[in-house]
């Protein structure tokens, strides 16, 4: 495919790529305060894209998604703290643990549909937290405290790379053969099977990506905190935040998770200094509004009400 055609055929992808390139070039000059905010925003976006792979693309809502973040975080803490791995290698370890865990959980939980799937993943998250609490090598429930330096630029470029890969993969799985299969599954799984779609395999495939990236993001998150603690690592609010971002931005879309991340991160960060917890009122109202009024999220609403954007954003 020639470059010009690709550019015209995938404006959203190129828009996102442009956004990322601007961030990368600007990176070294970003004031530290802004940089730390951006790192967190990109982290939220990364979690949103992770959730989008499963909830957005297949309609399987994973309430326990924080399990991948939490285990990714602990994997990072363990290899960095105990074996002295470089923190970047720790991110890879976090991603690998997320992937393996997703394959394990997914091959059982993805047999359940709807609320039963949501409950199955929720239970694994609660179980994983309680298991980690009693493992001596993982701090015996006290967490793992590390003393690593403040390296915002490294964190920034690390999350940048993770997010870049996610955007590319999201484009890849929403187009072509896999995209058709996923849309069919989301619409009517049994009818999809009746046309030859191997639904079990395709669901596990995207769930594996989902777990991998949540593991990587969870690892990066604790790197920026220089320590892993069981309660925040397995905080179920993360699962809800991830879902909120995807619902607000637009389930299964390419741009939606980023927009959803902005919509959730802004109130999150604002209320952090004003009234902790109040952000959930704002986020809750946003989610309710979108779920009831525009179930296709911001991207869906733009496509619906702004005809000129219809062929451009996805």
């Amino acid at each position, binding site marked *: 495919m020639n470059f010009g055609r690709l550019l015209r055929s995938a404006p959203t992808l190129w828009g996102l790529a442009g956004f990322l390139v601007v961030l990368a070039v600007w990176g070294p000059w970003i004031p530290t305060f802004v940089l730390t905010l951006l790192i967190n925003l990109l982290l939220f976006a990364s979690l949103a894209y992770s959730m989008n792979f499963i909830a957005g693309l297949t309609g399987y809502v994973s309430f326990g998604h924080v399990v991948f973040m939490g285990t990714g975080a602990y994997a990072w803490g363990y290899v960095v703290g105990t074996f002295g791995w470089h923190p970047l290698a720790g991110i890879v370890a976090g991603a690998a643990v997320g992937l393996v865990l997703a394959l394990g959980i997914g091959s059982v939980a993805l047999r359940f549909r709807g609320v039963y799937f949501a409950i199955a993943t929720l239970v694994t998250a609660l179980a994983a937290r309680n298991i980690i609490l009693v493992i001596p090598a993982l701090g015996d429930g006290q967490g793992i405290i590390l003393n690593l330096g403040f390296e915002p630029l490294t964190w920034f470029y690390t999350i940048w790379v993770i997010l870049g890969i996610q955007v590319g993969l999201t484009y890849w799985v929403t187009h072509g053969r896999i995209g058709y299969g996923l849309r069919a599954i989301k619409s009517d799984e049994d009818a999809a099977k*009746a046309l*030859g779609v*191997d639904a*079990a395999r395709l669901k596990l495939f995207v769930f594996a990506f989902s777990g991998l990236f949540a593991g990587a993001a969870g690892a990066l998150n604790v790197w920026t905190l220089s320590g892993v603690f069981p309660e925040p690592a397995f905080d179920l609010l993360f699962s809800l935040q991830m879902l909120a971002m995807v619902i607000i931005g637009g389930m299964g879309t390419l741009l939606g998770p980023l927009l959803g991340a902005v919509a959730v991160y802004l109130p999150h960060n604002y209320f952090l200094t004003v009234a902790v917890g109040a952000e959930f009122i704002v986020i809750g109202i946003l989610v309710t509004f979108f779920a009831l009024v525009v179930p296709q999220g911001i991207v869906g609403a733009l496509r619906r009400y702004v005809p000129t954007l219809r062929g451009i954003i996805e």
Partner: protein
Amino acid sequence: MTITIAAVEVHKRFGGVLALRDVSISVAEGQVVGLIGPNGSGKSTLLNVMAGVERPTAGRVVLDGKRVDGLPAHRIVERGVAKTHQIPRPFLGMTTEDNVTVAALYGSWKVRDAGAAREQARKVLNLIGLDGQADALAASLTVQTRKRLEFGRAIATGARILLLDEIFAGLSPDELREAIRLFTHVQEEIGFGALVVEHVMPAVLTISEHVVVIEEGRKIAAGTPSEVVRDPNVIEAYLGTEAARAAT
């Protein structure tokens, strides 16, 4: 090499209901077999068992000499057998063309490229006269058009044997004539075999070379259309004992 699918001595139990008792039936590629029977007699259940949607409680399903009962539905599609739904189940948020494209991508043709699959889908839509609605959302289609889309999707999987569940139901006499003409044309063009479940007697009798009749899960008659309509068991099942006595 033509393929054949056969249900052999199939039983199917749902809790207390014995939906199929010792039913055997077979369809070869190129052959059109009719399956008729009153409401609730087990026709859809038999199709589901053959398509891998349900497992038989006892008995076997044999495709091309190999046992396939117990295989998941998509594996059976891969081997060249596709089923339509009695109540159409299109992907509502997708266009007619995209619905058919899914079948072309994942069926037994194994078209990997989305562009080539869309090409195939358009050919199928042309063949079944739905090309005018290619870009319409499936949600906007009438029930009759959805039935035709079911048929189109099954064809687009590249199936060599189709299991068709009441695709002619609910048509006016004119529409029925037109639908039968289209079916015969497409069948001759592609040469697939078909097991056609139908309530509409004239439809089955015109298109089938062999007809099987089931009642309450049991096979009560089988033969050519003209043999079957004269069978006292069939007359009784359809019209009641009085009519059967009068006819003989």
